[in-house]
């Protein structure tokens, strides 16, 4: 069958993959409707975790009103924004992370590589948990509660900045997460890499200014969970800076390009070293 080429231009390839992702999404929604109890359980667990994470914040601020310029309301808002970022990640990225090392270990990667789709696209975005999307709503609610209690000045510009920053944060964290998990190729590790990364992410629940400088830098540029939580809240309380937004966008593009390189390198290793 020598018909016209599959992807004559990059736009064609992009559209084909977008259509594929939509297929991933519809099928995951249909599947979720068959397992309604899990759906509810996800929601309940998410709520419990949210409440649970607010306890230390409330206790913390029972002893003081201000830490490094952050009031209780600000930190609650941070918890809410963090929740929104986590919801996006747990919706479209997290379900894939643990599976990546499984693909390698169980040899299922072969069946992915043999198909005419971007392998990186597939391993990052194949599995979706639609139930998690509702945690965005709870996150929004908490954010609004926090902002109401806080000291900041909310404006349209700040909201826009925050939204862009959250998207950048999600892209950056996803890229870092995927890159780390992919290193399973080298170490053929059986460890829970994906869970460890998820634990590291928890640092984003608190403002970066709570941490010593080195750690602040780490979470801003090496594992940029800062873009997913602290910086958007800065924007929402009126401390926003368009430079940060620009840096965020640039870093996101860079991260994706680097990730692609890393993937090709990893696949070359996989194709050379396995049997």
């Amino acid at each position, binding site marked *: 069958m020598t018909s016209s080429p599959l992807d004559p231009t990059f736009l064609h390839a992009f559209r084909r993959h977008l259509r594929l992702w939509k297929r991933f999404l519809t099928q995951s929604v249909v599947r979720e409707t068959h397992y309604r109890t899990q759906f509810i359980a996800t929601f309940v667990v998410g709520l419990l975790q949210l409440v649970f994470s607010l306890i230390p914040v409330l206790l*913390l601020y029972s002893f003081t009103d201000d830490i490094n310029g952050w009031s209780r309301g600000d930190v609650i808002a941070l918890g809410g924004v963090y929740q929104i970022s986590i919801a996006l990640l747990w919706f479209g990225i997290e379900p894939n992370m643990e599976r990546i090392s499984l693909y390698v270990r169980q040899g299922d990667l072969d069946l992915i590589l043999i198909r005419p789709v971007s392998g990186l696209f597939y391993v990052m975005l194949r599995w979706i948990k639609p139930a998690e999307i509702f945690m965005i709503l709870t996150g929004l609610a908490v954010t609004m509660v926090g902002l109401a209690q806080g000291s900041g000045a909310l404006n349209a510009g700040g909201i826009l900045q925050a939204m862009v920053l959250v998207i950048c944060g999600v892209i950056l964290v996803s890229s870092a997460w995927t890159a780390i998990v992919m290193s399973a190729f080298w170490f053929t590790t059986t460890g829970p890499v994906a869970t460890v990364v998820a634990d590291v992410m928890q640092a984003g629940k608190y403002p970066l200014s709570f941490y010593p400088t080195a750690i602040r830098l780490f979470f801003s540029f090496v594992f940029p969970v800062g873009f997913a939580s602290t910086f958007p809240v800065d924007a929402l309380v009126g401390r926003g800076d368009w430079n940060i937004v620009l840096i965020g966008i640039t870093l996101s593009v860079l991260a994706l390009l680097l990730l692609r390189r890393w993937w090709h390198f990893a696949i070359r290793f996989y194709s050379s070293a396995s049997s």
Partner: protein
Amino acid sequence: MTLSQSLRIIRRLVIIDFTGALIYRAEFVMFMVSTILAPAISLLVWRAALANGASLPVDAEYLTTYFVLLGLVSMLTSSWTSSFLAEDIRLGNISKWIIRPGSTHFNGIANNLSEKMIKSVALAPFIAVLWWFFRDTVVLPSDPLRWVLFLLSIVAAAITVYALDVLTASLAFWIDDIGGINYARGLLAAILRGQLLPLALLPAWSQGFIDIQPFRFTLSFSLEIVVGNLTTQDLVLGTTLQLIYPVLAVLAARALWQRGLRAYTAVGA
């Protein structure tokens, strides 16, 4: 089955487990990174609060020492056997253990001990690094009696937690999915045993109840012994409770497990 026979079996199982587990070296290192992360983050956050002038019921030394040791002690007093045991009950796998001499729990106990051995080795460097960073504010008692009490209370705490695991797993004889129960228990325990933050930081009106509830004696009390503040009276009362709770837990677990087994074998294993 005599005690020495039981111990011999457990020792053999521990060695087998240990050897098998060493292959998964990276896995253990990763688990330990996870273990150390939450306390490290909490430590940094509470120190930031202190640095900003917050007046806490405890001082910087207490906080820092507490969080530095938290990862290790929490690991040593932990148990993960509940879900596996419940799964075995659900799938009927415990049949193969019931027909063998010796307790069904030998395997679980051996696994618990061997993994803790490996995890201690894997965790040590991380604790050392954390200690090094905060060496100026970490204060440990020189009184050897405290350390003896510390070790004893860890053992007692570990027994209590293991027994509680068996207790919740026993529910699987009647209930289909105990995952929810374990999850709720985990959340509750994390707060009440001092895993999230030192119990001393909880609101003053709750302190009376906090002091005597069983979860305190599955982690917090062990840490409190070496981290400071306990008067002799506190120690005596605490130690008494520390020794009572494991006994209660084991008795309760034993009773429920036997009850469950009877129900299980009555239907046909």
